[in-house]
């Protein structure tokens, strides 16, 4: 099962390598990993999507907590959380038909066309991973030129917080 873990870590060089290295060294799955500084410049926040049995997830959480750079960790998927992903898709859109079809699809999925050329559209789509996947599926017949996905960003619902 997919699990989402969110963590705050010291914003130090090498901290990301420690987390990534842990996953490869111990053979854990890593589906996506996003990291960026927070409003407190000394901290970075990371969202990791992984999968495995309960025992493996327990180990992943413990091993992450053991890293000296990890300040705080929360297993988001243990409770209610919001997960959002950003995707940028560049598609072939040279003909009027292609452009119309694309406009329609994009508006159904509430995305945006953010760049237009003679031959292409670039679309921005955000949402949970299911929605982003569904949009890609809907583009079945369309020539995809490039797809970029951010991986999930996660935050707990309501009072569930991860802060120091």
């Amino acid at each position: 099962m997919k699990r989402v873990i969110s963590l705050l870590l010291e914003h130090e060089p090498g901290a990301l390598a420690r987390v990534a290295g842990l996953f490869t060294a111990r053979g854990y799955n890593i589906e996506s990993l996003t990291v960026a500084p927070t409003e407190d410049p000394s901290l970075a926040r990371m969202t990791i999507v992984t999968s495995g049995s309960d025992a493996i997830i327990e180990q992943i959480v413990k091993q992450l907590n053991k890293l000296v750079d990890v300040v705080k960790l929360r297993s988001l998927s243990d409770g209610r959380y919001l997960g959002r992903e950003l995707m940028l898709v560049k598609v072939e859109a040279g003909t009027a038909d292609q452009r119309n079809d694309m406009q329609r699809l994009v508006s159904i999925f509430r995305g945006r066309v953010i760049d237009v050329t003679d031959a292409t559209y670039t679309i921005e789509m955000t949402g949970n991973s299911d929605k982003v996947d569904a949009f890609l599926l809907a583009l079945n017949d369309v020539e995809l030129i490039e797809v970029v996905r951010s991986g999930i960003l996660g935050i707990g619902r309501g009072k569930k917080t991860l802060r120091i």
Partner: protein
Amino acid sequence: MILTGADIVVNCLKDEGVEYIFGYPGGAALHIYDAIYNQDAVKHILVRHEQGAAHAADGYARATGKPGVVLVTSGPGVTNTVTGLATAHMDSIPMVVITGQVPSGLIGDDAFQEVDTVGVTRPCVKHNFLVKDVKKIAETIKKAFYIATSGRPGPVVVDIPKDISAHEAEYHYPEKIEMRSYQPRTCGHGKMIKKSVELLLGAKKPIIYTGGGAILAEAEKPLTKLVDKLGYPSTSTLMGLGAIPATHPTFLGMLGMHGTYESNLAMYHCDVMLAVGARFDDRVTGDLDKFAPNARIIHIDIDPSSIGKNVAVEVPIVGDCKSVLENMLDLLEGATDSINRSEVDNWWETIKEWKAVDSLQYDTSDTVIKPQYVIQKLFEITGGDAYVTSDVGQHQMWAAQYYQFEKPRRWINSGGLGTMGFGLPAAMGVQFGFPDDLVVCVTGDASIQMCLQELSTCLQYNLPIKIVNLNNQYMGMVRQWQEFFYDRRYSHSYMDALPDFVKLSESYGHVGILVENPKDVESAIKEAISMKDRLVFIDVITDPEENVYPMIAAGKGHNEIQLKPSKSEVENRELA
């Protein structure tokens, strides 16, 4: 006080109370070496290879309980140290390793003797730092000692670029350090401790299984009290030997791959298991599917990730072994009457039957020297009070099986990584820690050649180590596996062209004794010990094809333990 980075490093070590640094110089570390030259509070020990420095610091730490300190240069200095780091990391040994780095401006340029030290060492240290500002040196070193010695201990690397060690800053060594991201927990959970005591008191077939964590936590006193109070059988991993005295009436000997029959069967059949600072390593558990099928397990460990990693645990207790055991003892006060003595007595009866099998019995001989006999004599002569370091192989197992460790921190070996070459440099570290005590290195003809160069260090510092080389002219342990599992195809496990170890020792300025006859073993050991100020290398030519028994083959369960085949079985096999 304004000092250079290099002087700050040395002052930090002094203020941290460091006695010895084990090291080897080179370009990127030269400012620091210059700072060492100008003082005599911290003594530098010059080894002959950086691996030797790391193992020596490690041995010092294992024997004294104080962190071992290493200083090496960048690039090859660091890569030579890596084996020592991994060895210490696997066994949770506190070390602080300072490494020179190329100047900051050259980092990333493939500069001369540049290696990504933080990257190369990351997977085999507890933590590491690259210091980029001279003002951060003192704080970083303080953190390094704090991290290395607290929680589950381990090695920490501090990488210092050459220009940073030349820059100047105000020196101030912090008294204390707080880290928001690192706050190891030492106190066990009260509810869990209570539960563990209830479980123990209700046990019918209990076993107490202790590991290296019990020694690191210095938990020997409450541990021995606990086994005394409960009167339950106890066993230990290779790493935990000495926490409970080997001759203690409850002690069943070591468990695991080459553990005794009684301890492995007691593990298999127990109904309640108390694991103290042990990590359920595969050499101990054998096949996990067959591991203690009826056991309800209590596990005390300072590292939460050790608990439930390999084996499901009913009562997890995260905390310092010593303090948790003390809490348990408090709860046991006046409560032991509720122990089901008749059930436990029955259990002891069963165990005594297993014990009667005498699984460590070996064939004696008066023509060829049996390695077990050598260790037995060594034990008898030294009364179990020597510091014994070891390498890796059959000799290591025989040392663990036949030397009865009565005290913790006496048995110094690379259990987790199994590093050949560890024994001699580790013995140097121990001897520095305890200059007046007897330090013996039990080694093998292959292992000793992996850090042999340290014989030169031993001469320089007059270290009167006694080396007992169980010379079977084989990589015995490899040969044993090839005998058992590869139909005696001894692929590259034969040591051809062995040196004359006696002459070799003499050429390094030491004493060498060759022993080829069983009747000379005792006198040779005594003679070596009597030479109080000399290193003596005893080269004991042993039975080349002796095997270590009992044995649980890799992937088998405790209940599938194999005993030494009887003479008739061996003869039949040879005829067949």
